[in-house]
């Protein structure tokens, strides 16, 4: 019985890593778009511009585009306190949204490539899994 369970887990593991590797950038961005509509849009708006002084912009945001790992940590663990985005101070709370690593990767790929944002990096669930909480503490 134990062996069957082990084999099952092994197959599941191989299968899921196979799946992750095969999600293209375009597929990830599409999935990320849906996550964005669900979890992000109410504050950061469909234009990605946020609200000046209240909700920081994602469009042409130096904070986002120049430090992807910090942004991943913010989404993964939540973010509070003072940050500077495009020379404007923001002092708010973004609660942890309860997204899994794959969902964080997808929404990162979406916001890094929407509203004229452009990047060559491709965020993977594996990369998200390695981002420590200490980055935002």
């Amino acid at each position, binding site marked *: 019985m134990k062996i069957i369970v082990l084999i099952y887990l092994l197959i599941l593991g191989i299968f899921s890593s196979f799946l992750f590797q095969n999600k293209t950038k375009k597929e990830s961005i599409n999935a990320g778009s849906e996550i964005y509509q669900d979890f992000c849009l109410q504050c950061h708006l469909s234009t990605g511009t946020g609200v000046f002084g209240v909700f920081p912009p994602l469009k042409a945001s130096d904070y986002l585009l120049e430090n992807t790992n910090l942004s991943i940590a913010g989404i993964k663990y939540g973010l509070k306190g003072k940050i500077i985005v495009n020379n404007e101070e923001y002092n708010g709370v973004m*609660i942890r949204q309860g997204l899994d690593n794959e969902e964080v990767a997808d929404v990162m790929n979406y916001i890094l490539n929407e509203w004229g944002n452009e990047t060559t990096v491709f965020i993977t669930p594996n990369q998200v899994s390695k981002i420590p909480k200490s980055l935002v503490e």
Partner: protein
Amino acid sequence: MNYFLNFTCCIFFITSCAQENFPAIETPSVINYSFELVVDGIDIPWGMDFINESELLVTELSGILYRVSKGIKKEVSGLPEVYLRGQGGLLDVALHPEFKNNNLIYLTLASSLGDNPGGNTSLYQATLVGNSLEKVSLLYKASPNTKKGQHFGSRIAFDTKGHIYFSVGDRGNRDQNPQDISRDGGKVYRLNLDGTIPEDNPFFSSPKAKQAIFSYGHRNPQGIIVHPSTGSIWVNEHGPQGGDEINKLESGKNYGWPLITYGINYSGTPITDKTSNPKMEQPFYYWVPSIAPSGMAFSTSDVYKGWKNNLFVGSLKFEYLERLVIEGNKVVKREKILDKIGRVRNVKQGPDGYLYLGVEGRGIIKIMPL
């Protein structure tokens, strides 16, 4: 010249879209109040209720219930498991009307109980013993679970006839949930205080309906209060962009979402061109632009000059407390209180007659007359 024309067209377009619903919001001419922080260090103080003049319970969305005595907060243990997703987490808390005799409290929270992946809003009852919960029992769990992050509701209120009311938002499924009384979501519910369903609920005898439903066609009600003199149930609810509403609830009535609304999609596209339907209720008041209302309280004390019987609503979006003056059956004046204070998640009148606010990133503050 061309540039100028474009500019004026643009301004006209913007103002015509965002035409503010009467009465326009005002900044008070005299500010004869300030505030003091009574509980600090709570990121999202979602719900609160008062044990007595110096003690209260406060929920933090992330899943912590605090018992606060004279400003010192202690974590209450024994909570049911909380599902954290998007807007969902630990939501409202309310003391049983006979709390002094039975120590019972009620909690609403997002829960993943059930078969489908994801979660939905639930109502629990528990006994508060010191800083822990005992005899925790589930009174209601909305279904099905969903991984959507939006619109869990959920506020709690009591009438004087032994009923508890609570709200569940449409859970991001506006096309299926709010108008279908055989489904949860987009509803205000009414139970007896022990969790059983009152036989005089409007759909008690409808075989397919969720019998606990009191009213339907709601989007995301996050403010609920029983009117101090008439006893009727008032809710405020988040609309889409434009079209937040105050509704006075009547048993079995349909409040229209998403078939009638004064709002539009966040993307700017229309949801419907209809704002009324003879079979559906009109809001008592609607906000254009949206203020993102959360929490609701009437001031019934003499603590503040000129505020008696006014309605107070938190604005998450514009970061103030809104004071609404009601005359007859109309809102005749709206005013910003504590402008730029932060996202106002909740407002309640304490047993001392003062107004207490839950403000995101701050904690609980008390409005002090000067």
